Protein backbone atom coordinates (compact mmCIF):
# COMPACT_ATOMS: atom_id res chain seq x y z
CA UNK A 1 0.00 0.00 0.00
CA UNK A 2 3.13 2.09 -0.03
CA UNK A 3 2.28 3.95 -3.24
CA UNK A 4 -1.46 4.47 -2.66
CA UNK A 5 -0.99 8.09 -1.50
CA UNK A 6 1.08 8.93 -4.59
CA UNK A 7 -1.33 7.25 -6.99
CA UNK A 8 -4.26 8.99 -5.31
CA UNK A 9 -2.45 12.35 -5.45
CA UNK A 10 -1.80 11.84 -9.17
CA UNK A 11 -5.47 11.06 -9.68
CA UNK A 12 -6.57 14.11 -7.69
CA UNK A 13 -4.26 16.30 -9.74
CA UNK A 14 -5.61 14.98 -13.04
CA UNK A 15 -9.23 15.09 -11.94
CA UNK A 16 -8.87 18.77 -11.04
CA UNK A 17 -8.20 19.46 -14.73
CA UNK A 18 -11.35 17.54 -15.52
CA UNK A 19 -13.24 19.59 -12.91
CA UNK A 20 -12.04 22.87 -14.43
CA UNK A 21 -13.26 21.84 -17.87
CA UNK A 22 -16.54 20.35 -16.66
CA UNK A 23 -17.37 23.54 -14.74
CA UNK A 24 -17.13 25.47 -17.99
CA UNK A 25 -19.15 22.91 -19.91
CA UNK A 26 -21.83 22.75 -17.19
CA UNK A 27 -22.14 26.54 -17.13
CA UNK A 28 -22.80 26.44 -20.87
CA UNK A 29 -25.03 23.37 -20.52
CA UNK A 30 -22.80 21.74 -23.15
CA UNK A 31 -23.82 18.10 -22.82
CA UNK A 32 -21.61 16.93 -25.69
CA UNK A 33 -18.55 18.40 -24.00
CA UNK A 34 -19.55 16.85 -20.67
CA UNK A 35 -19.97 13.46 -22.35
CA UNK A 36 -16.51 13.71 -23.95
CA UNK A 37 -14.92 14.71 -20.65
CA UNK A 38 -16.69 11.87 -18.83
CA UNK A 39 -15.48 9.30 -21.35
CA UNK A 40 -11.89 10.37 -20.63
CA UNK A 41 -12.55 10.36 -16.91
CA UNK A 42 -13.97 6.82 -17.08
CA UNK A 43 -10.84 5.53 -18.78
CA UNK A 44 -8.59 7.33 -16.33
CA UNK A 45 -10.47 5.95 -13.35
CA UNK A 46 -10.40 2.38 -14.64
CA UNK A 47 -6.63 2.66 -15.02
CA UNK A 48 -6.24 4.13 -11.54
CA UNK A 49 -8.46 1.37 -10.14
CA UNK A 50 -6.15 -1.29 -11.59
CA UNK A 51 -3.06 0.46 -10.21
CA UNK A 52 -4.60 0.88 -6.78
CA UNK A 53 -5.74 -2.73 -6.56
CA UNK A 54 -2.20 -3.73 -7.41
CA UNK A 55 -1.08 -2.00 -4.23
CA UNK A 56 -3.44 -4.13 -2.16
CA UNK A 57 -2.17 -7.23 -3.91
CA UNK A 58 1.42 -6.37 -2.97
CA UNK A 59 0.35 -6.00 0.66
CA UNK A 60 -1.50 -9.30 0.54
CA UNK A 61 1.52 -11.04 -0.99
CA UNK A 62 3.92 -9.67 1.60
CA UNK A 63 1.74 -10.66 4.53
CA UNK A 64 0.89 -14.03 3.03
CA UNK A 65 4.58 -14.78 2.47
CA UNK A 66 5.48 -13.81 6.01
CA UNK A 67 2.71 -15.99 7.41
CA UNK A 68 3.61 -18.89 5.13
CA UNK A 69 7.31 -18.75 6.03
CA UNK A 70 6.47 -18.59 9.69
CA UNK A 71 3.96 -21.43 9.65
CA UNK A 72 5.80 -23.72 7.25
CA UNK A 73 8.93 -23.67 9.36
CA UNK A 74 7.12 -24.65 12.55
CA UNK A 75 8.08 -28.12 13.75
CA UNK A 76 4.52 -28.68 15.01
CA UNK A 77 2.63 -30.22 12.12
CA UNK A 78 -0.74 -28.94 13.36
CA UNK A 79 0.61 -25.43 12.80
CA UNK A 80 2.53 -26.28 9.63
CA UNK A 81 -0.29 -28.27 8.05
CA UNK A 82 -1.26 -27.02 4.62
CA UNK A 83 1.19 -24.12 4.68
CA UNK A 84 4.08 -26.33 3.60
CA UNK A 85 2.25 -28.03 0.71
CA UNK A 86 4.46 -28.02 -2.41
CA UNK A 87 2.21 -25.61 -4.33
CA UNK A 88 2.55 -23.14 -1.46
CA UNK A 89 6.31 -23.34 -1.20
CA UNK A 90 7.06 -21.32 -4.32
CA UNK A 91 9.60 -18.50 -4.50
CA UNK A 92 7.13 -16.15 -6.16
CA UNK A 93 3.99 -16.19 -4.01
CA UNK A 94 2.09 -14.65 -6.92
CA UNK A 95 2.03 -18.15 -8.37
CA UNK A 96 -0.21 -19.27 -5.53
CA UNK A 97 -3.77 -18.59 -6.77
CA UNK A 98 -5.17 -15.29 -5.53
CA UNK A 99 -8.20 -17.04 -4.00
CA UNK A 100 -5.88 -19.26 -1.98
CA UNK A 101 -3.70 -16.41 -0.74
CA UNK A 102 -6.77 -14.39 0.21
CA UNK A 103 -8.60 -17.31 1.87
CA UNK A 104 -5.60 -17.99 4.08
CA UNK A 105 -5.49 -14.39 5.24
CA UNK A 106 -9.18 -13.45 5.43
CA UNK A 107 -12.09 -15.71 6.39
CA UNK A 108 -13.65 -16.75 3.11
CA UNK A 109 -17.09 -16.96 4.70
CA UNK A 110 -17.13 -13.20 5.31
CA UNK A 111 -18.64 -10.45 3.18
CA UNK A 112 -15.21 -8.78 3.10
CA UNK A 113 -13.62 -11.82 1.47
CA UNK A 114 -16.36 -11.95 -1.16
CA UNK A 115 -16.04 -8.24 -1.88
CA UNK A 116 -12.26 -8.43 -2.29
CA UNK A 117 -12.49 -11.50 -4.50
CA UNK A 118 -15.16 -9.88 -6.63
CA UNK A 119 -13.06 -6.75 -6.97
CA UNK A 120 -10.09 -8.85 -8.02
CA UNK A 121 -12.18 -10.42 -10.78
CA UNK A 122 -13.29 -7.00 -11.94
CA UNK A 123 -9.70 -5.83 -11.87
CA UNK A 124 -8.70 -8.70 -14.15
CA UNK A 125 -11.65 -8.08 -16.44
CA UNK A 126 -10.66 -4.41 -16.62
CA UNK A 127 -6.95 -5.03 -17.12
CA UNK A 128 -7.67 -7.35 -20.04
CA UNK A 129 -9.91 -4.83 -21.76
CA UNK A 130 -13.05 -6.71 -20.83
CA UNK A 131 -15.21 -4.21 -19.01
CA UNK A 132 -16.93 -0.99 -19.82
CA UNK A 133 -17.97 -0.45 -16.20
CA UNK A 134 -17.09 2.88 -14.66
CA UNK A 135 -15.61 3.03 -11.19
CA UNK A 136 -18.11 4.05 -8.52
CA UNK A 137 -15.76 6.41 -6.73
CA UNK A 138 -11.97 6.36 -6.52
CA UNK A 139 -12.20 8.02 -3.09
CA UNK A 140 -14.55 5.29 -1.84
CA UNK A 141 -12.31 2.61 -3.34
CA UNK A 142 -9.24 3.99 -1.55
CA UNK A 143 -11.21 3.84 1.72
CA UNK A 144 -12.05 0.22 0.97
CA UNK A 145 -8.39 -0.58 0.33
CA UNK A 146 -7.37 0.78 3.71
CA UNK A 147 -10.16 -1.17 5.39
CA UNK A 148 -8.94 -4.33 3.69
CA UNK A 149 -5.40 -3.55 4.77
CA UNK A 150 -6.66 -3.38 8.35
CA UNK A 151 -8.19 -6.83 7.93
CA UNK A 152 -4.87 -8.21 6.72
CA UNK A 153 -3.06 -6.66 9.65
CA UNK A 154 -5.44 -8.27 12.12
CA UNK A 155 -4.73 -11.82 10.93
Amino acid at each position, binding site marked *: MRDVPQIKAAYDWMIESYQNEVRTAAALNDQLAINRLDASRDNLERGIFVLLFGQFEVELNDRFKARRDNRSSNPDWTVRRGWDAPQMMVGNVGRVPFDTRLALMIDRLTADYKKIKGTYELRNHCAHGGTSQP*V*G*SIDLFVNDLYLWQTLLRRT
Partner: protein
Amino acid sequence: MANTDPIEDFDDDELEIDKSYVQRRVDDWIKRLEELRALIAAWAGQNGWKTSDLTVAMDEELMQNHNIPAKQVPGLTLTGPKNELVSLKPKGLWVIGANGRVDLYSPKGAYLLVDIADHFQPAKWVLYRPGDRKEGQPFAPALLATMV
Protein backbone atom coordinates in the same frame (compact mmCIF):
# COMPACT_ATOMS: atom_id res chain seq x y z
CA MET B 1 -22.58 -24.75 -11.81
CA ALA B 2 -23.71 -21.17 -11.34
CA ASN B 3 -23.26 -18.78 -14.23
CA THR B 4 -20.93 -16.33 -12.54
CA ASP B 5 -19.97 -13.23 -14.44
CA PRO B 6 -17.08 -10.99 -13.41
CA ILE B 7 -19.21 -7.95 -14.14
CA GLU B 8 -21.59 -9.02 -11.36
CA ASP B 9 -19.10 -8.40 -8.64
CA PHE B 10 -19.31 -9.97 -5.28
CA ASP B 11 -22.50 -11.86 -4.81
CA ASP B 12 -22.68 -15.38 -3.50
CA ASP B 13 -20.71 -17.90 -5.52
CA GLU B 14 -23.86 -19.98 -5.92
CA LEU B 15 -25.90 -17.04 -7.25
CA GLU B 16 -27.47 -17.72 -10.61
CA ILE B 17 -26.89 -14.64 -12.73
CA ASP B 18 -29.61 -15.18 -15.27
CA LYS B 19 -31.88 -12.85 -17.15
CA SER B 20 -34.43 -12.80 -14.34
CA TYR B 21 -31.80 -11.72 -11.80
CA VAL B 22 -30.43 -8.99 -14.03
CA GLN B 23 -33.98 -7.72 -14.65
CA ARG B 24 -34.59 -7.59 -10.87
CA ARG B 25 -31.43 -5.55 -10.40
CA VAL B 26 -32.49 -3.14 -13.14
CA ASP B 27 -35.98 -2.77 -11.67
CA ASP B 28 -34.52 -2.18 -8.22
CA TRP B 29 -32.17 0.47 -9.61
CA ILE B 30 -35.01 2.32 -11.29
CA LYS B 31 -37.00 2.18 -8.04
CA ARG B 32 -34.08 3.64 -6.08
CA LEU B 33 -33.62 6.39 -8.65
CA GLU B 34 -37.30 7.27 -8.49
CA GLU B 35 -37.12 7.46 -4.70
CA LEU B 36 -34.03 9.66 -4.91
CA ARG B 37 -35.71 11.93 -7.41
CA ALA B 38 -38.82 12.22 -5.24
CA LEU B 39 -36.70 13.02 -2.17
CA ILE B 40 -34.83 15.78 -3.97
CA ALA B 41 -37.94 17.15 -5.65
CA ALA B 42 -39.66 17.44 -2.27
CA TRP B 43 -36.72 19.39 -0.84
CA ALA B 44 -36.56 21.57 -3.94
CA GLY B 45 -40.23 22.49 -3.68
CA GLN B 46 -39.77 23.51 -0.05
CA ASN B 47 -36.68 25.61 -0.73
CA GLY B 48 -37.46 27.67 -3.78
CA TRP B 49 -35.80 25.42 -6.36
CA LYS B 50 -37.49 24.34 -9.57
CA THR B 51 -37.17 20.88 -11.01
CA SER B 52 -37.66 19.29 -14.36
CA ASP B 53 -37.44 15.63 -15.06
CA LEU B 54 -34.89 14.21 -17.41
CA THR B 55 -34.25 10.66 -18.49
CA VAL B 56 -31.05 8.91 -19.35
CA ALA B 57 -30.62 5.79 -21.45
CA MET B 58 -29.57 2.65 -19.59
CA ASP B 59 -28.13 -0.12 -21.73
CA GLU B 60 -25.37 -1.69 -19.65
CA GLU B 61 -23.17 -4.59 -20.67
CA LEU B 62 -24.92 -7.10 -18.42
CA MET B 63 -28.31 -6.13 -19.86
CA GLN B 64 -26.99 -6.63 -23.36
CA ASN B 65 -25.49 -9.99 -22.41
CA HIS B 66 -28.93 -11.14 -21.22
CA ASN B 67 -30.98 -9.55 -24.00
CA ILE B 68 -32.69 -7.06 -21.72
CA PRO B 69 -33.91 -4.05 -23.71
CA ALA B 70 -32.46 -0.62 -23.01
CA LYS B 71 -34.42 1.50 -20.54
CA GLN B 72 -34.88 5.18 -19.85
CA VAL B 73 -34.07 5.88 -16.22
CA PRO B 74 -35.01 8.96 -14.19
CA GLY B 75 -32.73 11.89 -13.58
CA LEU B 76 -33.43 15.49 -12.65
CA THR B 77 -32.52 19.05 -13.48
CA LEU B 78 -32.72 21.62 -10.70
CA THR B 79 -32.75 25.38 -11.02
CA GLY B 80 -31.82 27.29 -7.90
CA PRO B 81 -33.29 30.57 -6.64
CA LYS B 82 -30.63 32.50 -8.60
CA ASN B 83 -31.00 30.35 -11.70
CA GLU B 84 -28.12 28.08 -10.77
CA LEU B 85 -28.31 24.76 -12.61
CA VAL B 86 -27.63 21.37 -11.11
CA SER B 87 -28.30 18.25 -13.13
CA LEU B 88 -28.44 14.69 -11.85
CA LYS B 89 -27.77 11.95 -14.36
CA PRO B 90 -27.65 8.26 -13.45
CA LYS B 91 -24.24 6.99 -14.50
CA GLY B 92 -24.85 3.30 -14.09
CA LEU B 93 -25.94 0.46 -11.87
CA TRP B 94 -23.01 -1.85 -12.42
CA VAL B 95 -20.18 0.36 -11.30
CA ILE B 96 -17.01 -0.89 -9.63
CA GLY B 97 -17.28 -0.81 -5.84
CA ALA B 98 -20.86 0.39 -5.37
CA ASN B 99 -24.48 -0.47 -6.11
CA GLY B 100 -25.01 2.32 -8.61
CA ARG B 101 -23.78 5.84 -9.23
CA VAL B 102 -25.48 9.12 -10.10
CA ASP B 103 -23.43 12.01 -11.49
CA LEU B 104 -24.19 15.62 -10.62
CA TYR B 105 -23.01 18.63 -12.60
CA SER B 106 -23.05 22.06 -11.03
CA PRO B 107 -21.32 25.44 -11.27
CA LYS B 108 -18.73 24.05 -8.86
CA GLY B 109 -18.00 21.04 -11.04
CA ALA B 110 -18.87 17.37 -10.98
CA TYR B 111 -20.03 15.43 -7.94
CA LEU B 112 -21.20 11.88 -7.61
CA LEU B 113 -23.57 9.87 -5.48
CA VAL B 114 -22.78 6.22 -4.90
CA ASP B 115 -25.12 3.77 -3.21
CA ILE B 116 -23.08 1.78 -0.70
CA ALA B 117 -25.95 -0.40 0.49
CA ASP B 118 -26.10 -4.09 -0.35
CA HIS B 119 -28.06 -5.29 -3.34
CA PHE B 120 -31.83 -5.03 -2.95
CA GLN B 121 -31.49 -3.05 0.29
CA PRO B 122 -32.73 0.52 0.83
CA ALA B 123 -30.28 2.93 -0.71
CA LYS B 124 -27.48 4.58 1.28
CA TRP B 125 -26.32 7.44 -0.90
CA VAL B 126 -22.91 8.97 -0.23
CA LEU B 127 -21.82 12.20 -1.91
CA TYR B 128 -18.29 12.76 -3.22
CA ARG B 129 -16.65 15.53 -5.19
CA PRO B 130 -13.79 13.89 -7.11
CA GLY B 131 -10.52 15.63 -6.39
CA ASP B 132 -11.67 17.16 -3.12
CA ARG B 133 -9.60 14.79 -0.97
CA LYS B 134 -12.42 14.66 1.56
CA GLU B 135 -14.47 11.89 3.07
CA GLY B 136 -17.79 11.20 1.43
CA GLN B 137 -20.89 12.62 3.09
CA PRO B 138 -24.16 10.77 3.66
CA PHE B 139 -26.41 12.48 1.18
CA ALA B 140 -29.14 14.88 2.17
CA PRO B 141 -30.83 17.08 -0.45
CA ALA B 142 -29.74 20.22 1.43
CA LEU B 143 -26.19 19.48 0.24
CA LEU B 144 -27.30 20.50 -3.23
CA ALA B 145 -27.31 24.10 -2.06
CA THR B 146 -23.55 23.82 -1.37
CA MET B 147 -22.86 22.95 -5.00
CA VAL B 148 -23.82 26.36 -6.35
